[in-house]
């Protein structure tokens, strides 16, 4: 038991360190900082322009702060979900490392979790910068009326994202190089289905029902309530904040269990089919 824990810790430690090195040491710190700022801010600016062009009251539209906040925290979804699943393809086909990681006496799952941690750190930087830009540049007013809800939702949401990212990494083990988009597809799907930038009521009912069953919908709604004092989706308005947190606890636990199961199965299939050092570029 102790040895398993030690191996898991070793995996997390190495994964985090390596992930951070790969993400950050390709250029000078100054350029890296610019890179970390430009991407997320540009993403938000697309929405800003859309609102300015079409919405009658521009950024004063009551939807805008909710849309801004959803899009900002969605950066975690992109980075962590897509990032962790991409890790598998990158390690396998680019660095040729996956097989060595796999056979090292550390926990493979822990290693993926560590890579997710590095992505989370990087995403945190982007989220903070974007929030700052929103408050200072776009006049979004944030309140901290419910810090417990903020911290609780944030931590549960991040853990949940890491678990689902690992789950996707398991899937990526089995598919070709272009499978890196599996993370992007899921992230893109979540952007749509979770009503990240528009009210869920606009979606046709089957999609709306699906969106209401997805953890990031509740996560983003909880964060909106914590930082703006109100949510975006009328469908969730009857839930109390405590109920929202409870749903997050349940979905995070489910994500954890599913990720362990799916990575385990994917590992076995990958070993059986010899996919750990597959080269599928074309």
């Amino acid at each position, binding site marked *: 038991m102790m040895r398993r824990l030690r191996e898991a810790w070793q995996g997390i430690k190495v994964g985090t360190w390596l992930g951070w090195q790969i993400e950050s040491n390709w250029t000078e710190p100054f350029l890296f900082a610019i890179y970390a700022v430009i991407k997320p801010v540009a993403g938000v600016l697309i929405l800003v322009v859309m609102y300015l062009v079409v919405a009658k009251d521009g950024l004063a539209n009551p939807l805008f702060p909710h849309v801004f906040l959803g899009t900002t925290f969605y950066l975690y979804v992109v980075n962590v979900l897509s990032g962790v699943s991409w890790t598998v393809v990158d390690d396998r086909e680019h660095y040729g490392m996956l097989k060595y990681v796999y056979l090292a006496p550390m926990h493979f799952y822990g290693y993926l979790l560590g890579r997710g941690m590095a992505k989370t750190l990087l995403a945190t930087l982007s989220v903070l910068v974007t929030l700052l830009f929103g408050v200072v540049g776009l006049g979004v007013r944030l309140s901290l009326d419910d810090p417990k809800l903020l911290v609780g939702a944030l931590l549960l949401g991040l853990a949940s994202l890491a678990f689902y990212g690992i789950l996707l990494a398991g899937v990526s083990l089995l598919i070709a190089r272009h499978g890196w988009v599996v993370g992007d597809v899921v992230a893109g799907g979540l952007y749509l289905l979770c009503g990240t930038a528009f009210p869920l009521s606009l979606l046709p009912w089957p999609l709306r029902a699906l969106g209401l069953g997805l953890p990031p919908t509740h996560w983003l709604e909880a964060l909106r309530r914590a930082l703006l004092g109100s949510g975006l989706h009328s469908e969730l308005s009857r839930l109390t904040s405590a109920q929202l947190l409870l749903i997050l606890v349940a979905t995070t636990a489910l994500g954890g269990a599913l990720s362990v199961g799916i990575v385990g199965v994917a590992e076995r299939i990958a070993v059986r089919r010899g996919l750990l050092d*597959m*080269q599928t*570029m*074309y």
Partner: protein
Amino acid sequence: MASYDLAVKTEGLTRIFRLRKREARDGAREILALDRVTLEVQRGELFGLLGPNGAGKTTLIKILATLLLPTSGRAYVAGIDVVENPVEVRRHINMVVGGETSGYGLLTVEENLWMFAQFYGIPSREARRRILELLALVGMADRAKTKVYHLSSGMRQKMNIVRGFLTNPEILFLDEPTLGLDVQTARTIREFVRRWLEEHPDRTILLTTHYMHEADELCDRVAIIDRGRILACAAPWELKTALRQEAVFRLRVEGIADAKAALDGMPEIRALAQHAEDGQLLLDLVLASEEALVSVLARLSASGARLAELRKEEPTLEDVFLALVGRKLTEDQDEHS
């Protein structure tokens, strides 16, 4: 000899790699990879570059193959300056690097090879004929339709070899072609290389290796390279004959930890290498004459060593390397690894 009569000619070829500040090694910001290398390879020759890892073999090949520029000096391939006219050089050459795969995993062996043939302008029908012929020669005829990512590393290497020969190059660079391969695959590749040269006597191969028996078995001439410098260049038999005037002994001794220290300062010792094995010390000695052995044994005995085995050996290229460099090729690899 004029450069156009030769397959390869280099004059004072030097390559220095500059490091960034944070990559500096012991404060040094430069690595001297090639140090004034002057070399001539005749047309039709199978020429070997023998040296340990990091000796500069691959750097030299890369310069000759137009993938890297020298810092100074000149290099000609098929009489053409590799710096001035790389495009023209490429019409005459091809290269195979051991341990590397080529092409795309999703394509079949035949498709990958066909793709490379297209880059050399070989008509499809002719390319397919050559591909099948060469695959048969390396024992891979039944793998033509197999996707590359299903191949073993030995098979991939054979495919890579076929890619090099497919274009029927005037001059072919083989950089450690049997690196990391099993004995049987390495032998197949060596036999294939030899047979190809017999059938194409006007072609030239420049082969780098750190396997002495490979150089010994295949090469018409060998240049021994270490730390960027060519130390000797001749036919393997000539190099070994030169050493025959000296005496090569293998000793196995016990009761001593460092024979090098014990024998230090003896002028009759041309070269000495030692390594421990099963509690004993194995010594490779190159002596100025057989008579010198007596004083060597006496010195060892005085240091507390007991002789367990003594053999007089016919010199090998390994001994040539030892005599030239002062350490064994394999010893260097141990250090590197």
